[in-house]
């Protein structure tokens, strides 16, 4: 009986310590799970990349961006970049504000991220130059006007040439008619004289 009592106390002790041990394990696991894995995206960030930073940073106070400067890894990166580019192209003021914000970031918080984004903005300037050049080629009316002018000028010159030839021909016909009439008159006069 005494032995039985001792065994029960012993098992209670084990159970108590077991419970403590399990609680410690659960705590560690919870803490471990709560920690972000190295290189993973922060929870709740739908864009989850540096590409989202420009759009977000313009809405935040300069210097308060919390996004990490990790490389783009998910398919959403391209969409976010495209959305940002579209927004910047659509509103020059937005683009200017964003560049100013990026310069603030460069000075205060995250120079590497800011430099990367500013380089992208400069690429966009290059793209804009090419886009403007293409638009100029598309709507270039100058050479078409030259070509049509050349066509009509040549046609007009040829018609003028034909008209002048016709005038010369009529003048020649008039001269011939006059000569014939003079010859006829002379012949009539000769007949009358004889």
């Amino acid at each position: 009986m005494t032995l039985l009592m001792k065994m029960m106390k012993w098992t209670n002790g084990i159970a108590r310590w077991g419970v403590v041990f399990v609680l410690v394990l659960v705590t560690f696991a919870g803490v471990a799970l709560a920690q972000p894995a190295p290189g993973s995206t922060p929870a709740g960030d739908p864009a989850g990349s540096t590409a989202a930073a420009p759009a977000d940073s313009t809405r935040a106070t300069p210097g308060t961006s919390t996004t990490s400067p990790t490389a783009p890894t998910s398919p959403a990166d391209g969409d976010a970049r495209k959305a940002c580019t579209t927004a910047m192209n659509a509103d020059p003021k937005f683009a200017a504000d964003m560049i100013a914000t990026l310069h603030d970031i460069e000075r205060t918080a995250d120079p590497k991220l800011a430099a990367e984004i500013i380089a992208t903005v400069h690429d966009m300037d290059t793209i804009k130059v090419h886009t403007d050049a293409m638009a100029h080629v598309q709507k270039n009316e100058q050479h078409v006007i030259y070509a049509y002018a050349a066509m009509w000028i040549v046609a007009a010159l040829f018609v003028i040439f034909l008209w002048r030839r016709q005038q010369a021909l009529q003048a020649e016909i008039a001269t011939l008619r006059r000569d014939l009439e003079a010859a006829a008159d002379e012949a009539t006069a000769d007949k009358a004289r004889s």
Partner: protein
Amino acid sequence: MNKFAVPLFATLAAVGIAVSVYLVFFVAPLEYSYNEAGTFNGSSLFFNQKIFYFHVGHAFWLFGAVFVSGLSSIGFLSTRDPRWDDVASASTDVAVAFGAVVLLTGSIWGKAAWDVWWQWEPRLTMSLLLWLVLVGYVLVRKFAGPSADRIAAGMAIFGMVGVPFIYKMVGQSSHPAAGSQGVVATLPPGERGSFWISVASFLCWYLALVISRVQSTRAERELRELRERGLDLGVLQ
């Protein structure tokens, strides 16, 4: 020759050119071409391609006019019938005008598309030589004296023989290709109607000019013959 032919063809040409201008600028799409990457390639002409409809239309009838002139000259040399010579002379005059349009519009197109006014390549050089032969024909007729018509007929035949070489050379360089795989044969449906209406309009324009020129050349010749006869008979002095 029917006296209504010139007004008829001139009216058809005026209406046709007005319609084709409308179609070219308001109906025919802009010319785009893409490469495999989905971006515009270097041969895209966009608005400049509007020159094509009139440049090629004139080129067609330049070649047609040179053939008419050459064949009429063969007819004149073999029969000595001056009516053949009238047709050859009239057709060559019109060919000089059409050739000037082809060279000028082609040069402007080259500047717009390739940023060069002129290249000394075989096709362009041959086209210029053909035009110079035609100009030479006109000068010979005016200044070569009594045998001018026969010398000019030989030049017209020489010019006609050169046309197939020019046609063959088109597409051998930066110029768009001709023939069954050429630009005209592979025109998109949206551009085809505008192009062929423009070609038909320039045919009417060519016919109006040639018939008018033949009539005046024939009248000049008859007048000259009458004057010579009057001088021979002693009626005129």
